[in-house]
């Protein structure tokens, strides 16, 4: 049984184990209790990473796997946040029902947006998705619906059940977020390794050909948008819990751009890449902010352009390309060493 | 030699399309490039003009190395390209389709009478958009376009494709008339047409130049024709 697990699987398991131990290790190192001070702060940092990781991964299902460049992904993320907030705050629903509602709304939304925007392709689709997302952003800001959305203030003070409260029960929420990311990752992996995932990749590589082989590519693209939309919406819901609010920025272009940045930095076309990208973006943002103050997006933008120009495959892709070479070189060296002995 | 191609290798994306093509086109001749679909004939022309630059090997035009230079520089040396499917500019009028090929002001003025004499149809249709022309007329326009500047070599790709036999005859007649002023490298599936026009031939098979010689000899060698070109 053990033989069947590939090295990457072991690395993944080690990573998850490491993340499970992280809060306690942090507490040991700093000497502070696990629920306070630095350990608590870094748990929060990683919670944000977990949520963004799921969001970025859902984006990559579209961009990296199916080859659909959408600029409206914030639509799903933000809607997830707002739906959770409204269900808890205005409808007074329990959490699990709110989560179910997120799924229902996300499915409906991605079907509508998908059917409309898939009528066009390429950069057209990019513009159309952007426009749809902006429409929801503008509507969330609209004063007409202040009663429900809180307009430009956002939906503040969402009543989160106390057992999962990110402020009082940080450690518990840390594990919930970690579990959420893990489950979503396994689901996404299930999708991409399924026949549907294979068709998605075929569409990315050569859509006319996939169509010629008899696949209704429209339906498959719609499936990709829906799966991706639901995942992003769930991540958005988690984000609302973590922030205790839903605000218009979650629907804004900035949120879409974040998904794109995480995916590009981590490497499009892999599931791990965007998750890694989320970590890099979050930590880099934190450090750059500490080092350069509020002008840090400038530095970040320059880094991003350089990555697009010189490392188009991102961290994971570049590693796969170069790493294979390095590994071969290393093995050869080992072999030579052995022969000399 | 006006043009010599020395064992060029060309990749398109991941695919190794040309695996060593060599050929020579003497001044004043019509040389035919024959071969099956997908053998690499079109890619050979595109490699010469610089649209798919070869990765290795040399291309010499009039003794000058031209491989690796941008297509517009290669064309400006005096090579006219008549591509597969004609690539007529649909939204430009026939006259504009000719005028855009000028390299110096006045190129067209000096040639227009000759072109309209060669292809009287084009004169009649001068103001029509290129997209409204029939296939044969588009082919004539594509050839005429390559005649506007002072080109010394024409690369002509599948001029007979999709045309009625009587139109093919017209094209053949016009190319034959041109052959005493200009050198032609002709890619052709229609063996009958190639045999009528060309002095020499090269057979391309699977990215290699497999065979070459005088056209007159090939016409008699049924075995060779069947082997490389299928039924003639």
């Amino acid at each position: 049984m053990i033989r069947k697990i590939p090295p990457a699987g072991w690395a993944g398991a080690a990573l998850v184990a490491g993340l499970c131990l992280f809060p306690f290790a942090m507490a040991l190192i700093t000497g502070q209790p696990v629920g306070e001070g630095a350990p608590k702060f870094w748990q929060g940092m990683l919670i944000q990473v977990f949520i963004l990781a799921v969001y970025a991964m859902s984006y990559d299902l579209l961009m990296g796997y199916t080859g659909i460049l959408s600029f409206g992904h914030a639509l799903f993320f933000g809607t997830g946040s707002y739906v959770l907030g409204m269900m808890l705050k205005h409808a007074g629903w329990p959490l699990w029902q709110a989560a179910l509602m997120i799924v229902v709304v996300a499915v409906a939304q991605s079907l509508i947006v998908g059917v409309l925007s898939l009528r066009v392709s390429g950069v057209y689709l990019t513009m159309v998705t952007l426009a749809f997302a902006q429409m929801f952003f503008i509507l969330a800001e609209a004063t007409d619906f202040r009663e429900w959305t809180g307009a430009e203030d956002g939906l503040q003070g969402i009543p989160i059940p106390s057992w999962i409260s990110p402020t009082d029960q940080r450690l518990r929420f840390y594990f919930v977020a970690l579990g959420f990311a893990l489950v979503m990752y396994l689901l996404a992996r299930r999708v991409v390794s399924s026949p549907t995932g294979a068709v998605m990749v075929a569409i990315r590589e050569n859509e006319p050909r996939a169509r010629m082989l008899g696949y209704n590519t429209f339906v498959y693209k719609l499936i990709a948008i829906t799966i991706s939309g639901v995942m992003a919406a769930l991540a958005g819901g988690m984000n609302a819990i973590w922030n205790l609010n839903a605000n218009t920025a979650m629907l804004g272009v900035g949120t879409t751009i974040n998904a794109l940045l995480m995916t590009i930095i981590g490497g499009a076309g892999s599931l791990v890449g965007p998750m890694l990208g989320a970590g890099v973006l979050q930590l880099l943002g934190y450090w750059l902010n500490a080092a350069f103050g509020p002008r840090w997006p400038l530095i970040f933008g320059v880094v991003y352009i350089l990555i697009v120009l010189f490392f188009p495959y991102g961290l994971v892709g570049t590693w796969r390309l170069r790493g294979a070479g390095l590994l071969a070189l290393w093995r050869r060296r080992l072999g030579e060493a052995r022969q000399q002995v | 030699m006006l043009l010599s191609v020395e064992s060029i290798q060309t990749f398109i994306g991941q695919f190794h399309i040309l695996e060593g093509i060599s050929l020579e086109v003497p001044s004043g001749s019509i040389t035919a490039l024959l071969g099956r679909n997908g053998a690499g004939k079109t890619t050979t022309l595109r490699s010469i003009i610089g649209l798919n630059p070869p990765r290795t090997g040399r291309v010499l035009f009039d003794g000058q190395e031209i491989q690796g230079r941008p297509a517009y520089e290669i064309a400006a040396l005096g090579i006219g390209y008549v591509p597969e499917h004609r690539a007529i500019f649909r939204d430009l009028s026939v006259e504009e389709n000719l005028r855009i090929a000028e390299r110096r002001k006045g190129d067209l003025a000096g040639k227009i009478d000759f072109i309209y004499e060669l292809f009287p149809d084009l004169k009649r249709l001068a103001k029509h958009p290129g997209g409204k022309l029939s296939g044969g007329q588009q082919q004539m326009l594509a050839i005429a376009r390559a005649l506007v500047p002072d080109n010394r070599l024409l690369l002509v790709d599948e001029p007979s494709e999709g045309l009625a036999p009587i139109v093919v005859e017209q094209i053949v007649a016009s190319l034959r008339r041109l052959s005493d002023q200009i050198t032609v490298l002709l890619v052709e599936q229609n063996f009958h047409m190639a045999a009528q026009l060309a002095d020499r031939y090269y057979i391309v098979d699977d990215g290699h130049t497999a065979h070459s010689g005088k056209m007159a000899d090939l016409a008699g060698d049924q075995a060779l024709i069947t082997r490389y070109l299928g039924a003639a």
Partner: protein
Amino acid sequence: MTNFLKQNRPLIIGSLAAVAAMAWALSQYEPKVAASILLSGLTLGALYFLVTSGLSLIFGLMDVLNFAHGLLFMVGAYMGYTLYANPRILLNTLPLLLALAGGAILARRAAPMLPKIPGGQAARWGLWALAVALLLLGSWGFDLAPLASTGISAGGDVPTAEAQEALGLFVGRLLALAASGIAGGLALALGQPFAGRSRGPRGLVLGAGLLALALLIAPARTLGEGAILGLSSNLRFLIALVVGAGSGAALGGLIEWSLIRPLYSRPIYQVLVTLGLVLVGTELVKGVWGPTGYYMDTPDFFSQRGEACPSPNLVAWLGDHCASIDVLGRPFPSYRIFIIALGLIMFAAIAVLLRRSRLGMIIRAGVQDAEMVQALGINVRRVFTMVFALGAGLAALGGVAAAPFIGVNPGIGQEFQLQAFIAVVIGGMGSYGGAAAGALLVGLARAFGDQIVLSGIQLPFMAEAVKFSPSIARASTVLIMALVLLIRPTGLFGKKD
């Protein structure tokens, strides 16, 4: 004719429906209100057109979706405003940029005439490192903040001496940057063995000219600032239009040449790189001009007030230059008439360029088949750069024109870009007429929306007039786009692919 009708049935039905809807909506208002809605729609449409046309031309010719187009609009607005109200920043930065560019062009063009530099790749990297080091040296400690902060918005003498760096230091910077440009230009020339041959002395003259210009401006900074601010506001505004459009075009050309061109083999990454530019550009603009906006005065030509105002008609306005003109009994700002006129003039000018000039012919041919244009012996890449610069210049011109109308702030680019995208989708990408029609439609829709926000609209079968917030007026254009997508995915004038 019947054939035309048949082929374009959705288009015709759509246009008729649009006209009918518009006529109905207009009939809900008094004529004077309806007229001002139409004029406001035309104003917005003209501005959208300036953004959309460039976007559409660039996409049509080179398949690049330029997400930085709104950024260029904003840069145009800022540059125009700066020249108009506070040219000090320009006069203190322009020579530096000129020196850098001049050095680079000079070196690049001179390189083939120089003896070959030994060392190959190593020499190239060495030169790049030298260029970066000199660039850092030349710009070390250069502070824009005092230059921006002391700016006043119009006229009069400005105490500039203490805000500017001493002439000696400034010239030192110039020389360092020129040297950096020369090193960079040589490195570039080394990297491209075939480029830059046999171009003649034009490049050399241009490079040397830019350098000389930089050195000329340097000692005349204070003088130049006084001279510009001493001009009449009309003249200054005219110069601002030219400078704004010109700097947008220059920036656009630079973007295409440096960032877009290496990525033609990876189209998605072109979009991604322009997106990165938005991040960087917006931050830079905030860094130089501050995160808050500015208000730009309308020039005197459009801002007279007094007894006779508002002018009774356009002809009378030519005499009295009132801030507004009477339209059916309602005053309408005369500056907006100028925006409409500018839009119409640019529409006609570009149409003539496309139809009548050789460049236009090449663009129309290139939209269909850029490769074939290349094979005819035309340097398509250079045409790409020119068209990118042209489109960028148009957007920037729109930015300057919009500045006195909506003000200058770091957010205007994004708002205009979104509406321009919608206009392009409605009109059909790569179609010049479509770009204009889409821009006009979006502009009119916005104007209607704004009016409904003000006074509501009486819908049939409803007791009270419906009113909503400005946000919904902004979002409504997306609905129009969705409708067009449903009926005709390629846009109203898009070619069927």
